[in-house]
C-alpha cells in the first residue's frame, strides 16, 4: 500500500536536488558586461514613435533611431545625420548631404530614399510636419547620400521641423518600414541609432533590452540635448518596468536598479536619505499642466465663462498639488514653456494678478450662466491629472457653479473626451492633462492652441483669429518677428482661452552615485552615461 504522505518530503527533496543539478548544467554564463538598469516612467507597449505621441515610445525612438537634425541646449538646430546642408537664396530649396558611415542595424547603409520616406510618413501624423508638407513641392533623392527639398513657399521652420525634439520626432527608418501606413504600427524596429533593440528579450510590461550599436558613428561634438555625439559607454541597457513606486524606490536603494526616470514627490525624501543616490532635476524645461474646455457645449462654449476661471486659478496651488514640493515647480504665466525663447507674460494679467473671485463671478453673470452642469472627467490612475481635477472642482464649487468630477481611469478619460455629444449623452465639460516643455515651446507644436474646430484637439475650439495669428507666426522671417508674432498669439489666447496653463513642474530623477555622464535635457537620454 502506498504511503504518499510519508514519502512526500523525500520526494520533494529529491525534486529540488534534481532541479538544482539540471539547472546547474543549464546555467548561462554571462560574459561580464556593463549593464545599465533603468526604471522608465511607463511601460513600453507601442514601438512606433510615429503612430503614437506617447512619451515612452518617443524615448524608445531616441534609443534606436537617429534624426537628420536635433535641437541643442541653446535651442539651436544642429545637423545630426546630416553632414552639410545648403539653403538656396530664395529659401525654396534645401539640399542635404548625409554623413559617412551611417548604417541601419541590419547592416544596410542609410540612403536618401530612407530619409525621404521617413519624413513623409512623419509629416502625415505630426502637426509641424503637416505644415511643412503643405509648403512642400517635392522631395528628391539626388543620389544615395544627397537629397533635396523643394518648397512651394518659404517655410522658415524647415530645420526646426526636421529637428523637432518631442513627439512626434522625425526619426529615420529604412524606406521599406517607412512606407508603412502612418495610421498603422510598424512591425520592425530597425534604426540607425546608438542602441539596438533586442526584440527577443522584450517582455511587454516587464523588460526592454537594448545593446550598444557598435557600428554607430557618433558625431565629434559633445552631447547637448539630443544633438552632438551620441557615445554609448555601456554594453547593454535594460529598462525594468516596476509598476509599484515603493518597490521601485526599494530596488534603487538596494542597487537592483541604477536609475529611476521619474519619482513621485512623496518618495523623494526616502531616496535623499541614501547617500549612494542622487536625486536631481535634469529636465531644464519641465512640464506644463493645463485645463482644457469643451467648446461645443455650455457653459464653456461661452468665452466669458472661460475667462472667469483665469481670475481664480492659482498656479501656486496647482504646482504644489502636482509636484508636492515648491522646489519642483513654479508658476508659468505663459502659453509657451517658461525658459524658452518665446515665453512671455504678454496678456497674462488675469492669470497672474491677485486672485479675484468677485471679478470671476461678474464674468459668470455676464455669461448668463444658468446653473448648467459641469462635468470634469478625471483619471485617478494619473496623479498629475487627478490632482488638477480636484483643485479645479474646488474652485468651481467656490464660485457656486454646478460642478462634479466623474472619475475613471486614463483609458476611460481619453475615450470619453473624444465624445462630442452633450453631457446627457456622455459628453464632458473639462479635462486636465499635461505636456512636456518641448511640446509647448511655440505656436507650431503647441497643439492645444489650434482653433480649427472639428479638426482641432479635443474640445474642438473654432478660432479663426488664432489660426490667422499662428499662420503669421509661421511666416515670420526672423527671430524678432517670430517673438512678436508669438506675443500676438498669446495675447489672443488669454482672450479666447483655449486652455488655462496651471503651472510648470519638474519630475525629479534619481540615480546611483556610480552613474555619471547624465545629460541635462528635457528628455532622458541614455548615451554618454557611464557606470563604474
Amino acid at each position, binding site marked *: 500500500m502506498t504511503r504518499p504522505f510519508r514519502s512526500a518530503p523525500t520526494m520533494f527533496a529529491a525534486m529540488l536536488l534534481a532541479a*538544482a543539478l539540471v539547472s546547474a548544467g543549464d546555467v548561462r554564463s554571462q560574459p561580464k558586461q556593463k549593464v545599465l538598469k533603468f526604471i522608465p516612467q511607463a511601460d513600453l507597449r507601442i514601438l512606433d514613435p510615429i503612430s503614437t505621441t506617447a512619451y515612452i515610445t518617443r524615448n524608445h525612438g531616441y534609443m534606436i533611431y537617429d534624426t537628420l537634425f536635433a535641437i541643442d541646449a541653446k535651442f539651436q538646430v544642429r545637423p545630426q545625420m546630416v553632414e552639410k546642408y545648403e539653403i538656396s537664396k530664395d529659401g525654396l530649396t534645401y539640399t542635404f548631404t548625409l554623413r559617412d558611415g551611417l548604417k541601419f542595424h541590419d547592416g544596410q547603409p542609410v540612403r536618401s530614399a530612407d530619409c525621404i520616406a521617413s519624413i513623409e510618413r512623419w509629416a502625415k501624423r505630426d502637426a509641424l510636419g503637416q505644415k511643412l508638407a503643405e509648403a512642400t513641392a517635392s522631395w528628391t533623392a539626388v543620389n544615395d547620400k544627397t537629397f533635396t527639398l523643394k518648397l512651394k513657399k518659404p517655410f522658415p521652420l524647415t530645420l526646426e521641423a526636421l529637428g523637432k525634439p518631442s513627439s512626434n520626432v522625425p526619426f529615420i527608418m529604412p524606406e521599406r518600414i517607412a512606407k508603412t501606413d502612418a495610421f498603422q504600427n510598424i512591425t520592425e524596429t530597425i534604426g540607425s541609432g546608438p542602441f539596438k533593440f533586442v526584440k527577443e528579450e522584450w517582455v511587454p510590461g516587464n523588460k526592454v533590452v537594448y545593446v550598444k550599436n557598435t557600428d554607430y558613428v557618433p558625431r565629434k561634438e559633445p552631447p547637448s540635448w539630443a544633438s552632438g555625439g551620441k557615445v554609448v559607454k555601456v554594453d547593454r541597457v535594460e529598462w525594468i*518596468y516596476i509598476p509599484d513606486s515603493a518597490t521601485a524606490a526599494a530596488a534603487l536603494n538596494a542597487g537592483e536598479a541604477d536609475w529611476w526616470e521619474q519619482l513621485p514627490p512623496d518618495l523623494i525624501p526616502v531616496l535623499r536619505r541614501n547617500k549612494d543616490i542622487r536625486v536631481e532635476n535634469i529636465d531644464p524645461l519641465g512640464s506644463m499642466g493645463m485645463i482644457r474646455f469643451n467648446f461645443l457645449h455650455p457653459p464653456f462654449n461661452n468665452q466669458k465663462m472661460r475667462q472667469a476661471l483665469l481670475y481664480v486659478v492659482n498656479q501656486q496651488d496647482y504646482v504644489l498639488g502636482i509636484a508636492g514640493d515648491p522646489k519642483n515647480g513654479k508658476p508659468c504665466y505663459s502659453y509657451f514653456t517658461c525658459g524658452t525663447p518665446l515665453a512671455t507674460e504678454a496678456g497674462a494679467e488675469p492669470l497672474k494678478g491677485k486672485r479675484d473671485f468677485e471679478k470671476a463671478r461678474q464674468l459668470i453673470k455676464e455669461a448668463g450662466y444658468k446653473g448648467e452642469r459641469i462635468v470634469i472627467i478625471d483619471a485617478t490612475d494619473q496623479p498629475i491629472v487627478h490632482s488638477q481635477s480636484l483643485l479645479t472642482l474646488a474652485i468651481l464649487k467656490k464660485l457656486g457653479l454646478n460642478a462634479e468630477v466623474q472619475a475613471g481611469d486614463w483609458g476611460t478619460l481619453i*475615450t470619453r473626451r473624444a465624445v462630442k455629444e452633450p453631457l446627457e449623452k456622455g459628453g464632458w465639460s473639462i479635462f486636465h492633462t499635461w*505636456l512636456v516643455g518641448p511640446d509647448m515651446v511655440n505656436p507650431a507644436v503647441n497643439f492645444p492652441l489650434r482653433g480649427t474646430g472639428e479638426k482641432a484637439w479635443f474640445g474642438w475650439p473654432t478660432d479663426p483669429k488664432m489660426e490667422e495669428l499662428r499662420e503669421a507666426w509661421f511666416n515670420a522671417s526672423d527671430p524678432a518677428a517670430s517673438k512678436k508674432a508669438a506675443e500676438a498669439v498669446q495675447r489672443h489666447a488669454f482672450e479666447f482661452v483655449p486652455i488655462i496653463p496651471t503651472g510648470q513642474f519638474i519630475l525629479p530623477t534619481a540615480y546611483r552615485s556610480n552613474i555619471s555622464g547624465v545629460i541635462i535635457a528635457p528628455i532622458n537620454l541614455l548615451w554618454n552615461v557611464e557606470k563604474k
Partner: protein
Amino acid sequence: MAVVAFVVFLLLYLTPGDPAAILAGDAATSEDIRRIREKLGLDEPFFVRFGGWVWSLLHGDLGTSIFTNLPVTHLIAQRIEPTLALTTCTLIVAVMVAVPLGVIAAARAGTWVDRTVMAFSVLGFSLPVFVLAYILILVFSIELDWLPVQGYRSIQDGFWEWLRHLILPSIALGTVYIALIARITRASMLDVLAQDYIRTAQAKGLGPRGVLVGHALKNAAVPIMTIIGIGIALLIGGAIVTETVFAIPGIGRLTVDAILRRDYPIIQGVILIFSAAYVLINLAVDLSYMLFDPRIRY
C-alpha cells in the same frame, strides 16, 4: 467554452473604452483616432468581428495584441513560467505550513495551541498581501540584504537565483492560503477524528502520529484537495497584487494591463485559455479524490 467565448467577446464589445484613442496618444485628434480605429477593424459590426475572431480561434490563433503587435500566444507563453513558478512555490509553502498547522490544531483542539493557530489564521486572512509584501521587502531585502526586492529570474538562469526571487512573493501570497488551508484542514480533521474507526485505531494501540497521519489525514484529504485545487486555479489566473509589488511578469499583470489599455485580443485570449485551464484543474482535483478515498469511483 463556446459560451465563454461569446460572453467574453460580448462583454468587451459593450464595455466603454477605445484602444484606438489610447494607441494614438494624448496629442491625437478625433480624425487620427477614427482612422486608427478603421485600420484596426474596430468599426466593424459585432458579428463580423466575432466571426473573424472565432475563425482565427479555430485555426489556433488567439490574435495579435493591438499595442505590441505580438501574438497573444507569445505574450501568454512569456508569462507561463513566472506564473507557474509562483503558483508552485506558493502552494508548496502554503501546504507545507498549513497542513501540519491544521493537523496540530485539530489534535490539540480547545487548547492554547489550537487558539494560537486559529489566531494566526485570522491574521493571515486580514493582512493585505501588499502590506505583508512591503514588510518582507523592508526586512529581508533592504535591512538584511538576504533576498532581492523584485523581479523574476528564469530557472534557466540558475536554480538558486530563480528560487531567491520567489521566496518573498511566495511567502506574501502564500499567507492567505496558509490561513485558508489550515482552517479547512482543522475542520476536516476534527470531523474525521470524531469517527469510530479512529477510536478503533487508537484502541488497537496505534500511536498519535500513526492515527493522525496514517488514518485521519488521509480521510480528511478530500476537502483539503478541493481548496488546494481552487487555489491552483486562482493563482494560475494571476496574483495581480503580488505580481505588481514584486514586478513579476505574470498572467495577472498581463490581464490587468490589457484591461486598462482595452487590448481586446489579449483579454479574450487570456480569459479563454484560463477558463479551459480552470475546467481541467477542477477535473484533476475531482480525479484525485479517488487516490485519497477508494470509496469514490466515477
